[in-house]
């Protein structure tokens, strides 16, 4: 007599959309962490060597890497903002959670827009 074991397989996160989003969230977090680590290494290395001499610190690798890190940080922020309303010790209905999330998203988008537009606006160096 034996009971039948059931364990989730290695690809359990492909089960449905919610799990895929979760997995993407976690991967984005890992990528951001990797980015921060490499930047630390790069900053550290720059104190001793000239960065532009090293292939991996230049186009296209470095730029691609920065764009991937940017996408990862957007994903990470969006999904993290989704989690925040769930941590507040208040009785919020399902609709309330969605509204809180949208408000947080709006605040985040505005901050994001303000900071990036500040960088994008041309400056004259005359």
């Amino acid at each position, binding site marked *: 007599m034996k009971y*039948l074991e059931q364990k*989730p397989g290695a690809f359990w996160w492909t089960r449905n959309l919610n799990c895929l989003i979760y997995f993407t969230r976690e991967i984005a977090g890992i990528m951001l962490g990797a980015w921060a680590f490499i930047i630390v290494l790069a900053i550290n290395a720059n104190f001793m060597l000239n960065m532009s001499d090293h292939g991996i610190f230049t186009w296209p690798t470095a730029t691609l890497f920065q764009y991937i890190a940017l996408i990862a940080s957007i994903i990470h922020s969006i999904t993290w903002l989704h989690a925040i309303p769930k941590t507040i010790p208040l009785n919020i209905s399902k609709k309330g959670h969605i509204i809180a999330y949208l408000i947080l998203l709006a605040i985040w988008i505005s901050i994001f827009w303000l900071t990036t537009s500040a960088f994008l606006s041309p400056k004259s160096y005359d």
Partner: protein
Amino acid sequence: MRNFIIKIQRYNPETEKIYFEEHTVPYTKDLTVLDALNFIKEKTGGEIAYRWACRMGICGSCGAIINGKPALMCSTFCVQLKQPITLQPLANFKVIKDLIVDTDDAMNKFRAAMPYTEFQKKHLEPQHETLQTPAQLNRLKQTSQCIKCMLCYAACPVYGLKQEFIGPAAGALAQRYNLDTRDNIKNQRMDSITAENGIYNCSFIGECSRVCPKNVDPAAALQKLKVAGIIHTAKKTAKSILKTPKKSS
């Protein structure tokens, strides 16, 4: 009228054979999966094993994986499901027979949530109730709806990969008592659930809240507990530092 086709996963613990059986059930608009299963059981001489009791979605006996998603069989209508309807036992648990799984381990997790208001065992026959306003009662309304159906444990990948995890329902139950104004043992409960196999193992995948038939939202309860847990541990640490006598210089 078209009939329903139902595929049921069978498992025999003696022969260790696992296989699927297909059955046809005559169509009625309000046929639940449980009704269909009862029909099939009668027609085939009664061997398919499954649990059920109340047939009104309150006892939590009839959980199963229906078309890939954990659900209560008595509350799911065949018309709303894609055909053929596939019935499998709840995931993450050992299958004893057919659709019956061993939930003993998960049921024991409730002990870790310390689901009582005090440690005092002998009740002192109080004269009056403790007063509690409707607003205070409302705080615990959502988490108190849990029928212990174990669908959340079947959905939780963390529980599937690590059986020691306290799990969503136990977390929701702990939150329900934490929010109750009559509770006296919040600190001990927090110690219990923030321990090694406790709430911090939750990765907030959110599957539990998606499948919960009673809208308990155990995922939210667990996240709130995590924050409360941090505050609790910080307070405890601060207290113990302040209490430690200062070393003489």
